[in-house]
């Protein structure tokens, strides 16, 4: 493991920001630290950087315990949430600062800074001050500044939070490409699951100072290990009692279920049903246009479910439809597991 956290605890007064945090990161990976606000993700990042000191536990970078190494000597590049560019320095001086601190020669600094400015596509803006740049440009400068001294690890705190939606989309893929091009191990913090899923190779989900789950975006999406992850990821709705639904009778009392729009399929009454015994009857209660799809609320046996439909399928409010629920995440206080619709499985076995 390239970066490793072992039994990290950290409190601010009575607030426990990190509670026995353990994880490891492989070299060259792009990691997303995902969690709701106050879940301790930024604290983890700041402890790795050396801006906060853990109360107990060890942090290793490249096999070396760095707890007692000051922030400036850890060889870390850090991109702050609001960039923290030096506002009285030009773009050039901002990027050059880290190299000047290392007492590099004038030519060396000039070459490296020019190379980075070219990389971030801000040629001709070397002399501008940060407040003469757009949000996206500032972010690029912050990125270049962090990379200038060739850090062994790049940390980014909510790198896209301060940028408007359209540019954010663009910057996400730009940043991902850049990090792969340079090959630097990176960790970024975000509260936006779309961002984490799109950008990260691996996601670490935090909640109440604990690491809930670590895995690839697909693993986390498909196999949530804890009730929190099941509810946090995706567009999830919680069902208090799902035993009423066809095919889920074996769910034990006390267990709840998480359902996502993509678990549900609705069909017209007159369409041929593949899994007749699994299909429920539902009534459409609301239809909302979402740009590229419809969001449909449908009531089945008194339970209100949310699903989506393509724009070609036009339904009407009050229309009776067939509702097929493929699967549910079942969870109690400690565990979460995926449960396929039993009624569907039974039919399949008959065909085989």
């Amino acid at each position, binding site marked *: 493991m390239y970066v490793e956290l072992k039994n990290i605890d950290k409190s601010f007064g009575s607030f426990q920001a990190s509670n026995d945090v353990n994880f490891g990161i492989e070299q060259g990976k792009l990691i997303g630290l995902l969690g709701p606000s106050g879940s301790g993700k930024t604290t983890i990042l700041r402890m790795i950087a*050396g801006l906060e000191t853990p109360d107990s536990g060890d942090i290793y970078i490249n096999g070396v315990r760095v707890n007692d190494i000051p922030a400036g000597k850890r060889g870390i590049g*850090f991109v702050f949430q609001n960039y923290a560019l*030096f506002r*009285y320095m030009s773009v050039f001086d901002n990027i050059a600062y880290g190299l000047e*601190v290392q007492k590099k020669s004038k030519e060396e600094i000039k070459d490296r800074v020019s190379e980075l400015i070219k990389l971030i596509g801000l040629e001709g803006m070397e002399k501008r*001050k940060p407040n003469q740049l757009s949000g996206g440009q500032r972010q690029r400068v912050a990125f270049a500044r962090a990379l200038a001294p060739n850090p062994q690890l790049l940390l980014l705190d909510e790198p896209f939070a301060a940028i408007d939606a359209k540019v954010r989309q663009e910057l996400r893929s730009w940043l991902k490409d850049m990090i792969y091009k340079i090959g630097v191990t990176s960790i970024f913090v975000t509260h936006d699951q779309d961002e984490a899923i799109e950008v990260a190779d691996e996601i670490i989900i935090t909640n109440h100072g604990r690491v809930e789950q670590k895995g690839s975006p697909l693993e986390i999406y498909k196999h949530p290990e804890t009730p929190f992850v099941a509810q946090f990821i995706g567009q999830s709705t919680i069902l208090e009692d799902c035993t009423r639904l066809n095919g889920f009778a074996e769910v034990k009392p006390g267990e709840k279920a998480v359902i996502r729009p993509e678990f549900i399929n609705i069909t017209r009454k007159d369409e041929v049903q593949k899994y007749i015994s699994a299909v429920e009857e539902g009534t459409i209660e609301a239809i909302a246009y979402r740009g590229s799809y419809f969001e449909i609320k449908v009531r089945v046996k008194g339970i209100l479910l949310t699903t989506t439909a393509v724009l070609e399928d036009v339904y009407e409010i009050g229309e009776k439809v067939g509702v097929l629920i493929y699967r549910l995440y079942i969870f109690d206080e400690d565990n979460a597991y995926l449960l396929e619709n039993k009624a569907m499985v039974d039919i399949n076995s008959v065909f085989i």
Partner: protein
Amino acid sequence: MSQTNKAIQQKSTNSNAKGVKVLLISLGVIFIFIMLVIPMIAVITYAFQDGLKAYQEAIFDPYTIKALQLTLLATVTAVAINTVFGLFAAWTITKFKFRGKQLLTTLIDIPFAISPVIAGLVLVLTFGKIGWAYDFLNAYDIKIVFAVPGIILATVFVTFPFISRELIPVLSAQGTDEEEAAALMGAGGFNIFRKVTLPHIKWALLYGIVLCTARAMGEFGAVSVISGHLRGKTNTLPLHVEILYNDFQLTSAFAVASILVILAVIILILRNLIEYKAKKAGEK
């Protein structure tokens, strides 16, 4: 009908607002005129009432020159000391988290709350003949009370909060991100201060220095207690004015006072210049 009513109402509130504005402005002007402008004019006219020659004599009197020198010395030293300590105090309070921070902030403001005379008395009680530090000072032949060091100490005490008070809001508005960013790149404390913090607080610092200078030059109460009024030795300009005034040398007293007025005007011009420059720098 109601339309016109509304229009009339609108007009009357508008003229009301205008009336208030005119009233407030004239009140302000009258107040400033009576409290500030007339006394200033009085000082200058009194100073020249016996002609230019008498004015020159009062100004170039050796005791006046000595007093001016001492005032300048005390001011420059006190401002230098307070600049250093003000910077340290403001930096400590805004960039670190620690217990008792609120207490420290309050302590810095003490000179604002305490009457300068009491500040002078405290210094006399500490360093004077009855003070606890007297034996020690005497052993090393250091004189503080009724001597120049005492005057400087008193000036430092009274003007202590000016610079840190100007710096604290600016520094806390800036936050610690930029310094953290610099520290992460391995920069040392002095480099961070010089390259990152100083450009940011430059104008506030200059402004604080100007205010501190103005206050230090005019300081009377604390200095009066500790100086002992030794002419040519421990007399500052304000003290000298008082002595002349008590001797019924009114012309001389006002002539010397006019020096302080001129210095104050210079400082005010500097102050406005700094404010203008700072605004321009902020807009850039």
